[in-house]
């Protein structure tokens, strides 16, 4: 973990309101799939807090990494205005990523992403495939114009798309794809909206399941207790996990979602 001014290599729109930003910095050395960075989008007060964004891909050879974000509120809107050559204040890498080591060579991994939960799965997919693991990817989006990275995943994995309005791929949710196509595997990794993660946790598409959670954050490093969740065994007790530093990735069943 370090704080570094990372330089913008490129920053472009890749789907409706979705931007892909590549940055260069020495913190790339330490990065793992599923970790995130905490981004200060402007040097002043407006906005004040950092924004947590997942690491979408890591290019160690070039000391570059890519994040993908949806232009939404003030922070991400300002981020979308950054031009190549400018610097962005980044704190990272933060959190514990997806455990690649839990997938054994020759096994099948299912990756399930929804909306802006898709990005962290991309680096994960790359690393799994490199290790010799078969990857099946199911990605869910609102509609056709929101779809991104399909062809990137398709390069090395069996890839299915679901859209809520049916304008592209299967109509419905990622879980509809999982059920109708009867997809199974040895391990499942997922990131996306909480209802999607709950549905996945409630089913049994794979014996091992890892989920990446989101929560509003303050510090991003475990000091402020903003991002705490209950542990599953003790849902009303005082045991807790911090999404920022214990997560964002948890084994299904570890925390209450």
């Amino acid at each position, binding site marked *: *973990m*370090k*704080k570094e001014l990372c330089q913008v290599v490129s920053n472009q729109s890749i789907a409706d309101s979705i931007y892909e930003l590549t940055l260069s910095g020495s913190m790339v050395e330490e990065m793992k799939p599923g970790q995130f960075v905490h981004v*200060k989008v402007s040097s002043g*007060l*407006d*906005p*004040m*807090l*950092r924004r947590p964004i997942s690491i979408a891909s890591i290019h160690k050879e070039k000391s570059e990494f890519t994040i993908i974000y949806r232009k939404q509120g003030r922070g991400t809107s300002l981020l979308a205005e950054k031009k190549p050559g400018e610097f962005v204040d980044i*704190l990272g890498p933060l959190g514990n990523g997806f455990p690649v080591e839990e997938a054994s060579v020759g096994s099948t991994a299912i990756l399930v992403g929804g909306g802006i939960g898709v990005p962290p799965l991309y680096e994960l997919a790359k690393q799994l495939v490199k290790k010799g693991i078969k990857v099946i990817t199911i990605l869910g989006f609102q509609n056709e114009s929101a779809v991104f990275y399909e062809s990137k995943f398709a390069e090395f994995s069996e890839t299915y798309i679901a859209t809520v309005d049916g304008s592209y791929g299967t109509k419905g949710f990622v879980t509809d794809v999982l059920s109708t196509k009867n997809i199974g595997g040895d391990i499942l990794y997922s990131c996306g909206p909480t209802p999607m993660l709950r549905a996945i946790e409630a089913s049994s598409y794979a014996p091992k399941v890892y989920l990446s959670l989101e*929560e*509003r*954050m*303050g*510090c*991003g*490093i*475990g*000091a*402020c*207790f*903003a*991002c*705490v*969740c*209950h542990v599953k065994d003790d849902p009303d*007790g*005082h045991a*807790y996990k911090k999404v920022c*530093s214990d997560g964002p990735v948890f084994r299904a069943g570890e925390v209450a979602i």
Partner: protein
Amino acid sequence: MRSLSIELPGLSLKNPIMPASGCFGFGKEYSQLFDLNILGSIMVKATTPEPRFGNPTPRVAETPGGMLNAIGLQNPGLEKVVTEELPWLEKFNLPIIANVAGSTEEDYVRVAERISKAPNVHALELNISCPNVKTGGIAFGTDPEMAKDLTKKVKAVSDVPVYVKLSPNVTDIVKIAKAVEAGGADGLTMINTLVGMRIDLHSAQPILSNRTGGLSGAAIKPVALRMIYEVSQQVDIPIIGMGGIQSAEDVIEFFYAGASAVAVGTQNFVDPFVCPTIIQELPALLEKLGYDHISDCIGRSWKKNEQPAYHRA
């Protein structure tokens, strides 16, 4: 750095800069980023007798120039703080300020009695101003008599000086300050957060699940300065100031208002290196402004017959 040392009841500070309670945990996380030994002190997270989970999430929301939090005093409880968190901090050469919280008088007394015996705890900060818990907290901080009584009881059992943390959510902060001074407080810390709220545009519901939360950050700086200015002229005990501090310039402004040391809260989240940066920049700033020592700045906005040093030069 000799120009930065400050002596306060219980606290020999090499510099008057410390992280504010609740914004730095018990130091472990930030110790991965810099050597905690450079700090003047650490105000550690509030401790209650039993462990607390706190409020449901979302617990934070951003506001213009500030943020709301409703953590709800989550902490591992007195036992664990005394046997694990504080001992871990012993490896640093730091006088710790322990933040004492609870729901009842007995809670405060129990925590204060035990935690004040920890070897590295050199002062207590009595948190009678947390706006995010249903019982205790701010109730003690808005009633002068309750505040005075509680201070007395805590003083009676504490082995170290007691600073009382004041709430800004009151009509007359001087009255509360004088009451806790009369109750035996050795110092004041101020301000805690202002009660605020944000509502989500789409759901029409408050963003925080606690609905309201405590406003901190740069937005509250002028309120903090005004209250320190008013109180410091009316009490004879020192004030550790806080509320929106972001820079060495802000630190001087708090000293001018009447603070004798300061704490940095929210800005740690924005820039985890804010404390080391301020500590590094202060000596040059003091020199530029013509002061030999940071203590020359205390209360300078209201002290009579004291020309700024650069006027004397």
